[in-house]
């Protein structure tokens, strides 16, 4: 496969280059307004929410219909160039990085809601629709779209499908794959296929489940059929205040062991509480070791019982106090604090690096002790905010990127934490995806034969590897792949 550098280079022999020909073909499909090819307009597409590795595409296209996507993909095949789909570019793992350049197919102009069917509880949407715009459109109907990643105000449904996004409420309601019943996909070779449908139980092979979470390597999603979830009749939101992180993690285990499935169960440690308090002045206790944000929902008669049980369990685990949100406004503010926690870190430190690991829930105390110890050993301050209920941790390592030695220590500490997650029977990503960031962990995480099966599957669906190259699975000697050494951690200072 040629890289697109051959197409963006000018003609050398006096004839029109293949690249120029291809751009003309694209222009005929999407028009002048739907295409960017100037260097100064491509620059902003060189990275997403993951800013360590960068590569600008050679051309960015904004199709508005499935048919346009098909034509674009076919031309990419014809000219043998790689292509990568992109939504809002909020990936924290480099999911939209155009490794090797090529064509970036941006789906942000396909953002319509095509159908909302409340009686059968589904909606059909275009891929570029912003997650929260769907929930907004459903306001007042008694239904919502359950997956609620913290970036839901900006991220797109197709990005959610690609990474199988989670969110605070996945503990009870499940992740994206549990809420997508069908997809329209343009295959890497430019065919349109329909996977699944509106009905829940179907006889065919579950290709929808296969596609969700494939990080764009199996094709481009152009339509999604998503399940709508009934709004809970009632909910109770509580804030448990603990002296130590260990007490808080023990309370988490106790709650789950008691058979309660909270709608959300989030932990924030002292460092995070300090940052959030500076940002939002909620009245969090600054001297507590950790707080748990716990929400239960369901029928009005049930939630009070569950809430009472949770309060008792927290107290038994040593909670200093358990507060309840007394009004919808208070609940909303609590959630706002939690969802904007990462952003508030800017108030603690000039740079930071978020990790996304998973451990079995019962190993939470162990991994947190390890993280604290790891921070001490490397002289790095680490704060924690995470989806405690499903063991998905997000240690945030604070540093100043101008201090190179410290920066290296942060990178080292991050890797040790992720290795420890694997050792404890967990994984290196709970929701951000592998992208390009964690490719090197795949071989640690899976056995050789496991990776081989996944690679075979990709080879069957994406035979030439043109669609989203070098994502999710390591590609030995892949064309167009560039080795980008990881020189520094952190999401600060993107350029």
């Amino acid at each position: 496969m040629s890289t697109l550098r051959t197409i963006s280079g000018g003609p050398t022999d006096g004839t029109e280059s293949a690249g120029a020909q291809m751009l003309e073909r694209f222009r005929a499909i999407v028009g002048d307004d739907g295409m960017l090819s100037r260097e100064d307009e491509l620059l902003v597409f060189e990275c997403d929410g993951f800013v360590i590795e960068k590569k600008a595409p050679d051309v960015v296209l904004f199709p508005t219909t499935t048919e346009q996507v098909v034509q674009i993909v076919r031309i990419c095949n014809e000219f043998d160039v790689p292509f990568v789909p992109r939504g809002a570019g909020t990936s924290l793992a480099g999911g939209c990085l155009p490794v090797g350049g090529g064509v970036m197919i941006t789906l942000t102009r396909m953002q319509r809601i095509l159908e909302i069917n409340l009686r059968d509880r589904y909606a059909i949407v275009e891929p570029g629709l912003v997650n929260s715009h769907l929930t907004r459109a459903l306001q007042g109907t008694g239904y919502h779209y359950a997956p609620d990643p913290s970036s839901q105000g900006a991220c797109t449904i197709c990005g959610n499908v690609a990474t199988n996004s989670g969110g605070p409420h996945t503990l009870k309601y499940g992740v994206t794959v549990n809420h997508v019943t069908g997809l329209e996909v343009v295959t890497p070779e430019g065919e349109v296929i329909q996977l699944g449908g509106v009905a829940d139980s179907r006889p065919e092979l579950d290709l929808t489940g296969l596609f969700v979470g494939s990080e764009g390597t199996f094709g481009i999603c152009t339509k999604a059929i998503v399940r709508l979830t009934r709004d809970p009749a009632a909910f109770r939101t509580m804030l448990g205040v603990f002296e130590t992180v260990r007490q808080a993690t023990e309370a988490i285990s106790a709650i789950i062991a008691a058979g309660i499935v909270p709608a959300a169960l989030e932990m924030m440690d002292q460092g995070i509480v300090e940052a959030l308090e500076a940002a939002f002045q909620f009245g969090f206790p600054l001297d507590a070791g950790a707080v748990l944000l716990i929400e239960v929902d369901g029928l009005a008669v049930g939630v009070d019982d569950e809430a009472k049980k949770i309060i008792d369990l927290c107290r038994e685990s040593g909670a200093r106090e358990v507060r309840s949100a007394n009004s919808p406004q208070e609940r909303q503010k609590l959630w706002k604090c939690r969802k904007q926690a990462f952003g508030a870190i800017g108030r603690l430190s000039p740079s930071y690096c978020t990790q996304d690991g998973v451990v079995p829930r019962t190993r939470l105390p162990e991994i947190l002790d390890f993280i604290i110890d790891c921070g001490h050993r490397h002289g790095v301050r680490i704060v924690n905010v995470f989806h405690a209920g499903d063991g998905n941790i997000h240690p945030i390592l604070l540093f100043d990127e101008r201090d190179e030695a410290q920066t290296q220590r942060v990178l080292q500490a991050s890797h040790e934490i992720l290795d420890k997650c694997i050792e404890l029977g967990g994984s290196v990503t709970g929701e951000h995806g592998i992208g390009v960031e964690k490719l090197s962990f795949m071989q640690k995480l899976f056995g050789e034969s496991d990776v081989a099966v996944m690679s075979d599957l990709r080879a069957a669906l994406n035979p030439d590897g043109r669609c989203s190259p070098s994502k999710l699975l390591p590609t030995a000697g892949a064309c167009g792949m560039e080795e980008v050494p990881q020189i520094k951690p952190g999401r600060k200072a993107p350029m």
Partner: protein
Amino acid sequence: MAERVLDHVEYDRFLDCVHCGLCTSACPTYLETGDENNSPRGRIYLMRAVADGKLPLSDTVQRHLDLCLDCRSCETACPSGVQYGRLIEPFRAATQEQASLAGQDVTRSWFHRGILYGLFPYPNRMKWALAPARWAQRLGLDRLAETLGLFSLFPKKLRRMQRLLPPLPRPERALPVVLSAQGTKRARVGLFTGCVAEAVFSPTNRATARVLQANGCEVVVPPTQVCCGAIHYHSGTAEQALKFALQNVAAFPVDGLDAIIVDVAGGGALVQEYKHIAEELCRENPQQQTALRALAGKMRDVSEFLMELGPVQPTGSLPLKATYHDACHLVHAQRIREQPRDLLELIPDLKLVPLAESDICCGAAGSYNLTEADMADRLAQRKLDNILASGAQVVLSANAGCTLQIQAAIRKSGKPLWTVHPIELLDLSYRNEPPPEFLRVQPTTN
């Protein structure tokens, strides 16, 4: 260019952006185009690339920056507290400086000198300039001219201005310098009357004064006050903005006032910016800095002030279905979201229905609807679609520019909707006056 940018922009502000992208869908131009170059994150990236010398300030880059509405919606969305306004405004000042050195100063065009800077900031000149338009409207000549295509002889920007013009009120006498409080005096406040607002929406200022009086406020209206300077500041000619700011400092007896009330969101936001203007332009003059800060510190939006004071319950029934549009310079620049809604909830029988994307810019954005016609029209259409979908009869808008823009869109659609400042509705209720005739039919259910 890189050095010039670094002269104006505090580089560390770029570093506040962690590139998470949560601002993108809050940006009206990104919502319309889906192009990262037209998103806040993208624009910060572009500005920083220019500052780093990585990109030249090409026409293309300039286009993407010009397309920014300055609505500051991204600041509301940003969890990291990036002060986008503190990036793009100084960046514009740098571009402006560069352009004038190269002899291509856009601020010297007929439009900028004659209209933006020469006419808008002066309510009296505006009234004179608008007199023919008002007579033409009264005699129906404007419609005749439209039919005959006479307006096509106007330059494009003037043509757009003509279309934006609402039915103009009769010129009113200037407000008295002091208006007494009704009942027990609870506060003494200054009233900032604005420039375009006073010329085109003089009834709003009068309604604000009456509502304040009804709430026990003595209202002082200094006749020597001038335009806030927003038009100049936002187009990169900050020096003139400073001149206006200092004139306003002289006009308002800050020490004797509990607050200075503004009923135009854009004006209020800019007066609050006086403290930044003080930092940027009066570095050497601590006295001016103190005075500008004091004035900025006293500024309150009328809804914010009334909710702090504790409003007197209005009693006149207004059985209307209304929806509230968040003016960017109120909701994003001043973070005033609930107060106007809370005030409106006090009006007996008024039904306030939600407006989708209520806090997404309508495309007015100061003089943007004259300088960036295409995007302004797209955003007006988007706003109109959302308004129509809400099923409301009345659109409440607390900013003169938004009102002009929304009224024009509604006129074009031919729908019988009323766009009005929330304070005017409140004023009707305090005075037990009925709504306008054409709205006195029951709303169709929607």
